[in-house]
């Protein structure tokens, strides 16, 4: 049995610069190690040896067991240190941890993804899954908000998904110059326009908590029940297995009960301040 506290060595095979402060690492298990299996929505603890660990959602395709993909925004000591990695370097991986997006439960329903900023990264595996199993789902809608046009993550992929006849993609930015031809405004504004059945939709939401609050309001106004909305929460995770309590969220631990929660199960604590 693998000890969840011991990192497994992975080799960096590729580093891609996504945005000024955001990059993607492709990792493969060190020689002799098994392929890595995970479910969309789960995360790993990435260990930069000698520096520390940081929880990072997996942003690659769960069907591709060969390469483990993480998209990271450099915001703190460890994530900044990870920016120094290059192909051939080693990194420690603990995981996968946490709950997953409800891909099985969503079968037969419309799937609506509402996300902002780097929140698109943890949802990308869910998008890959729906697209690979397109006939199992109803209408598929991706609504994405970014700070500015220059901050749009996975831009080429978004354009590719938008070009599909079976997928509706709408993108907005909070601020733009006049050269931007797309939407300007917050992402909850896109919800009333999207064509889906509120009574038979599974909605997956990931982004800053304030963005999620207003998104849920807009979804409720549209008639989507809290039991059909799933959110991915973010807290300061350390052990990732529910021992240390750093990520305690009321009676729950984000690391092991989450990060993906059905909204009605956390509604009562979602707006509690300082929780």
């Amino acid at each position: 049995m693998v000890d969840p506290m011991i990192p497994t060595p992975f080799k960096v095979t590729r580093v891609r610069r996504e945005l000024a402060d955001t990059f993607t690492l492709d990792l493969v298990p060190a020689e002799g190690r098994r392929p890595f299996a995970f479910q969309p929505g789960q995360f790993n603890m990435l260990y930069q040896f000698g520096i520390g660990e940081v929880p990072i959602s997996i942003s690659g395709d769960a069907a591709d067991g060969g390469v483990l993909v993480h998209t990271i925004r450099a915001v703190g000591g460890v994530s900044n240190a990870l920016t120094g990695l290059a192909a051939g370097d080693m990194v420690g991986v603990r995981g996968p941890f946490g709950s997953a997006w409800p891909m099985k439960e969503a079968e037969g329903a419309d799937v609506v993804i509402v996300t902002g900023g780097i929140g698109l990264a943890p949802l990308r595996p869910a998008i890959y899954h729906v697209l690979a199993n397109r006939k199992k789902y109803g209408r598929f809608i991706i609504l994405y908000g970014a700070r500015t046009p220059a901050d749009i993550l996975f831009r080429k992929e978004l354009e590719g998904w938008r070009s599909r006849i079976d997928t509706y993609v709408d993108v907005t930015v909070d601020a733009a110059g006049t050269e931007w031809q797309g939407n300007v405004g917050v992402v909850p504004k896109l919800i009333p326009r999207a064509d889906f059945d509120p009574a038979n939709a599974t909605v997956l939401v990931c982004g800053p908590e304030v963005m999620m609050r207003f998104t849920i309001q807009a979804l409720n106004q549209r008639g989507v029940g809290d039991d059909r909305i799933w959110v991915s929460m973010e807290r300061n995770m350390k052990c990732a297995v529910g021992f240390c309590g750093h990520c305690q969220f009321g009676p729950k631990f984000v690391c092991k009960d989450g990060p993906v929660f059905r909204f009605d199960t956390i509604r009562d604590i979602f707006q509690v301040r300082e929780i």
Partner: protein
Amino acid sequence: MVQIEGMGKELAEHPFFDGMESKDRELLSGCAKNEVFDADEYVFREGEPADKFYLIRHGTVAVELHAPGHDPMVLETLRKGDIFGWSWMVQPYTWTFDVRAVELTRVISLDAKCLRGKLEKDHSLGYELFKRFIPVMAERVGAARLQLLDLYGQPAERRSRSKKK
């Protein structure tokens, strides 16, 4: 030139008038006409008289702010089903932003002087109209506040900015 006939149907098709009694819509339709703006054509500019309000039937407009020494900024884009321009309700009845058509845009415009005259004569009509305006205004103020939060900016940047304030 205000078209007197034929606009009631167009108004009925716009979501802004959902649920309004047809007699009220017909009254308002006397102030309405169709207009078309080409891509990059300005519907109005800041400081000009706010003599209309607009309902988008097709296309997209950008609400812009131009400040000396800065590149123009798009504050918001509005699309089919949206309305824009409420300076016609607030003295001194001048536009506070620029609005530019991003693409070929078809709108219904309602003449402000005509509207204000009808609403003064019929306050219940005014109430019906304002019941539709207020939620739009509230939603736009709320959205503007969210944009100000710079939700997707680096946490450290946001913290330092709030400390400076």
